[in-house]
């Protein structure tokens, strides 16, 4: 195997492992092609089982007497410390882990070696096909499914099938695509059944300094309006949209898109998210700091502010659709980062279906995977790694954080719990499943992920796994849920960023109690209803048998007159 050259020390005794909330354990460290694990002689079990791809950064500290200490900073913000007996081994292991966690050759990644050890009920690769999602839109005579991109030739980052206005033919679409950045032409993101309005997304138009226009693009957009009004929500501030115009991009000028009203609802550009996360996580990790320092670093990181902006923009879009009865086009520049955050969150606000487990999975498939959010680029590294490339960006994490913010404001409106969101976060950054590999469907097809790897959804969508992710307070809620974006309402997601720093067992206990309270209530309701049904049946029977009469009968023997009388007085 090619990995062998990286593994200088496959096995090492006497390594001391230090994990959050656990006592240090001594054991044998083993390194394989994809994993690092440590088993203790005493307990005879694995104390650590870590996929190399989960490691974000490796730090080593050597000391003369006691070998060295290896700090593995994971992408999920867990810190693992290993005390290695000799300095040489320490360096070797550090080198191995570093190399193995940075393998870029896709076919060497773990999902290609992982075999499902569970019974698959449904294949996750085919669970959320564009066709079945289109069926959910319903038999709308306004929209159709188009295979213009069947061979990923029109737009490489789109899926093979997209939803477009019925009145627009594929040829027009292909022409319109050439007018959009990365050919990401306007497609349907969400259809609001209540009023027939829609959310459309695309990338910026290539207007450029010469004010190019494209009739087909205008035609395509106008066809989405269906005689209603339309808003274009640009996620950039006007000045940066203008700057983009100088570089060949831009925004829809009013004279050519006069049926549309443009709103600039700025969200920080995705490339700054990464920096914000690094600062924010650093502040979270620094437990020795003063309260002032913590608050000032929290503020200057801008992370919560990013959340506020994204949520605000999503609320604006959702309001345009639901309250203002309008169709909305959302784009920033490339339309594969903030645009997707906004359209996905707007759907979460508007559509109760997205708040179920399956609906949320479908949302991730539709708005993130099939619409070409470059997971491979964005999630290659997390908050600890020093990278020179600028492709990394926690766009998806920020989206999950926004979901959590809404979730904690509406804790009964979601079918899933916090653990589900945590799981998705971890899976997006490091996984044995193929779902979040590659940057788009085109690449996924090229590498035959569907046949060579297991889908995350195949694993998750089994009753024994789903059970863990059920929110026991869930009561289906048909109406839109409007979150508050006031700073007082947005909080640090302790369950994610401080998960390895503060003990959350109190909260797990609380959810167990919640489960008990709800189960008891449910059971009693069932029981009462059952008994009532029996009563009715028995009453009927008794009446038929003339044993019970609906009026006061004569009593031959009154067994306790006193009680009857005295109680009757009250």
């Amino acid at each position, binding site marked *: 195997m090619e990995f062998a050259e990286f593994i200088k020390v496959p096995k090492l005794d006497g390594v001391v492992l230090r994990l959050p909330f656990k006592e240090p354990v001594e054991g044998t460290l083993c390194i394989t092609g994809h994993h690092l694990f440590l088993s203790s002689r005493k307990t005879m079990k694995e104390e650590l089982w870590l996929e190399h791809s989960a490691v974000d950064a490796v730090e080593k500290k050597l000391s003369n007497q006691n070998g060295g200490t290896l700090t593995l900073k994971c992408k999920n913000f867990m810190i693992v410390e290993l005390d290695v007996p000799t300095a040489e081994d320490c360096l070797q292991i550090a080198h191995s882990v570093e190399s193995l966690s940075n393998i870029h050759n896709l076919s060497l990644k773990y999902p290609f070696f992982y075999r499902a050890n569970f019974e698959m009920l449904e294949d996750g690769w085919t669970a959320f096909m564009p066709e079945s999602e289109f069926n959910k839109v319903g038999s709308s005579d306004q929209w159709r499914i188009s295979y213009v991109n069947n061979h990923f030739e029109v737009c490489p980052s789109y899926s093979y099938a997209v939803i477009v206005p019925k009145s627009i033919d594929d040829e027009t679409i292909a022409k319109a695509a050439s007018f959009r950045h990365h050919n990401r032409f306007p497609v349907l993101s969400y259809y609001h059944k209540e009023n027939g309005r829609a959310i459309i997304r695309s990338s910026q138009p290539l207007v450029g300094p010469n004010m190019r226009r494209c009739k087909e693009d205008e035609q395509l957009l106008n066809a989405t309006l269906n005689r209603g009004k339309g808003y274009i929500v640009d996620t950039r501030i006007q000045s940066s949209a203008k700057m983009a115009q100088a570089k060949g991009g831009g925004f829809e000028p009013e004279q050519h898109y006069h049926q549309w009203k443009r709103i600039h609802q700025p969200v920080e550009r995705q490339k700054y998210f990464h920096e914000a996360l690094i600062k924010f996580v650093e502040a979270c990790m620094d437990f020795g700091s003063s309260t002032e320092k913590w608050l000032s670093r929290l503020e200057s990181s801008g992370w919560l502010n990013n959340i506020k902006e994204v949520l605000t923009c999503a609320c604006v879009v959702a309001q345009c659709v639901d309250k203002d009865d309008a169709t909305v086009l959302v784009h920033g520049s490339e339309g594969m980062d903030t645009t997707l955050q906004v359209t996905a969150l707007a759907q979460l606000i508007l559509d109760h279906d997205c708040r179920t487990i399956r609906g949320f999975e479908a949302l991730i498939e539709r708005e993130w995977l099939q619409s070409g959010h470059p997971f491979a680029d964005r999630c290659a590294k997390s908050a600890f790694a020093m990278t020179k490339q600028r492709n990394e960006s926690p766009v998806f994490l920020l989206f999950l954080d926004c979901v959590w913010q809404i979730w904690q404001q509406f804790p009964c409106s979601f079918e899933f719990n916090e653990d589900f969101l945590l799981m998705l976060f971890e899976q997006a950054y490091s996984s044995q499943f193929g779902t979040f590999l590659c940057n788009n469907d085109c690449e996924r097809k090229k590498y035959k992920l569907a046949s060579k790897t297991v889908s995350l959804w195949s694993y998750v969508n089994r009753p024994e796994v789903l059970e863990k992710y059920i929110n026991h307070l869930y009561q289906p809620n048909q109406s839109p849920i409007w979150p508050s974006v006031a700073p007082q309402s947005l909080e640090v997601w302790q369950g994610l960023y401080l998960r390895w720093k503060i003990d959350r067992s109190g909260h797990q206990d609380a959810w167990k109690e919640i489960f008990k*309270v709800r189960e008891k209530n449910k059971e009693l309701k069932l029981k009462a209803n059952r008994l009532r049904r029996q009563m009715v049946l028995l009453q009927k029977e008794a009446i038929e048998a003339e044993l019970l009469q609906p009026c006061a009968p004569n009593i031959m023997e009154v067994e306790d007159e006193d009680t009857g009388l005295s109680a009757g007085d009250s």
Partner: protein
Amino acid sequence: MEFIKTPKVENVRLLDRFNVRKPIVGTLYLTATHLIFVDPAGKRETWILHMHIASIEKQPLSTTGSPLVIRCKTFLCVTFIIPRERDCHDIYTSLLKLAHPTDIEELYAFHYTSPDDMPKHQGWNFFSLESEYLRMGVPNAHWALTQMNKDYEICDTYPKYLYVPSGVSTPVLIASARFRSRGRLPVLCYLHNTNQAAICRCSQPLAGFKARCEEDEKMLHAILKANPKSEFMYVVDTRPKINAMANRAAGKGYESEVFYSDIKFQFCGIENIHVMRSSLQKLVEVSELKNPSMSAFLTGLETSGWQKHIRAIMETAVFIANAVEDGISVLVHCSDGWDRTAQTCSLASIFLDPYYRTLHGFQALIEKEWLSFGHKFTDRCRFLESIEAKEESPVFTQFIECVWQLMQQFPCAFQFNERFLLTIHDHVYSCQFGTFIGNCEKDRLDLRLSERTYSLWGHMLNHTSEYINPMFKKDYELTNPVLRPNCNPQVFRFWKSMYNRFDNGVHPRENIGDILSAMTDHSTSLEDHVILLEKRVKSLLKLLGKSEDTLKSKLQGLVSSESLYMLCELTKGLSPLSGDGGHAAANSAQTASPQNSKTVNNTSIDGSAVGGDNSVRDNEVRRSDSESGFEDGGSQMSKSGMELEGIEEVDSLQDSPVISQSNSLDNLMLEQLELEMESVAVDWKTLRNIKQCSCAAPFEHYTKKHHCWKCGNVFCQRCIGRHIPLPGHYAQRPVPVCKSCYKEVKHSPSVNSFQSIQTLSPNTPTAPV
């Protein structure tokens, strides 16, 4: 009232922060106790208790009128725009007088009468210092009660009863008291139940730069010796060192480790009342920002320093609790020993002792550490006009917030909920109850508050079910007897339900606590209803002539599974048959009786035996119910809490109908059965999307939403009229119902009235209904 010049102003506009563009127009009423704004369109009423008003500000006249900004101690901030400047001025001057009475006898508590017929004495006798110390196992070999301060002569801000190390002589105590600021000598406030480590409290010593007092040193040594296993003790000065040093120049200061052998001295850096006051001021400004940016909010939060101070208090309490847990006694003081000392000693006690995390225990803790040991509520909360502004400080508010922060970290550890904390906080300031009036125990005695005013504890007892934390785990005290809070800055949260309580927009739209509380209440109702239903089913089966054995097996089946339902289905199918054959004996027996009486003879034949059996079975059913994993801390607690007062009454209520029901089971009538079924709602309306009560009063985020146990609809406090036993409940405990259901139940023929008719006219034939 002589202060009220203008009792009513029309066309007043209410501005709230989030609705500046759409002000509400309504009428402002000024009463002797409240300022009330009524919005006729929205049916919204804003009641502001005069005692809650912290500040009133008259802003410059605008085109629409005179703005009057009112800020409350409950963190409500409203602006009224009053059309005429004169009216505004009148209201302003009246409120200035009403909000800050000059004489303590003018406080609300002295003329408040409880609307819910609560006896005045209720609550005043719930707690006694002696029984609280008895609970801790004091007096014992090491600690004794001294009568020295019986007449408050040694220290007038301390309680009558003081607990001190047992061997210490009176002269030593007196000398020690003289060496301490305001005579507040070191006394016991908490004793660890197993390791004998104690928390003691006092004020700073009058040490200056070199003064010493041998008796005081003896006193501290005696405290150390009262904990035989320990070699040393801590003296915790909760102040920053610089403050303590400054006090030395004024002849006060702190203990020197040179003079006091065996002590370890520790400064803790909690700032003084003036710093805390201005910190809260800044925090309020932050919470009142209009549409703040994230950055402005966080920067404001940081510069207010509020969370830093909260954290300092928590850290000090953690230090004290850790020492005590390690078996080391701690003596705590600040300057006078009634602010920071009260905060940290009471918090440390909560960490150490699960009792203080219960409803009753928390109240006992406040009684001990705050009321008995003389936290100056009247001064710190500025009840009176005469109190200087520099005396005011949110010391108690900080304590309450610390407890809330703990609740965030340990959601299952507390029997009470956030509403409990907010209620106590608000009523400290409301002066509606005598509990917090005065500055010390002696003041309250002199004012004869227990005779003249109501007790908050008595009032809260009547609302116990509202304060229960549904997530409270009864066995938490076994698994986690000691709370070890995390005190890192990242863990502290902004308490929006306190400081932004009246901004409906910023709160979670679905409140887990309220939903769970409603669920728990609902389960309590259903549990009771199920017991009755089971009895009814049983007697119906009996009526239909099933033998005792089949009955038993069916009932067992009923408890465990659906098997009875299956059986019923079967019997239903067979009923024509059984009607002819199975009941032949019963039928033939009946034909003999005149008037076609439907009394079933086969049951009356073995009547006594069945009666005996019944009660046994009842117990079985009940037991099996409680054993089937349905036990729940919350509901049990709420029951026991609510029944505390009237156990006997409820028992007698329970008994009579039960007896009559079980004896007259065979006299079941359809009407009665239907009545029973109708009287208990199996489904309760969900709290989601309920914006107002049926009386059209809008629900705010913080208002408690009540379910009617009969119809299952949601009502406001005012519409949930009274408590009444429902026919469908076995235990016949009075439960909350809405006004119309109350009338219905009250006027409906009850089980018993059926019986009385039967008893009175045994032979009169009645027409079928």
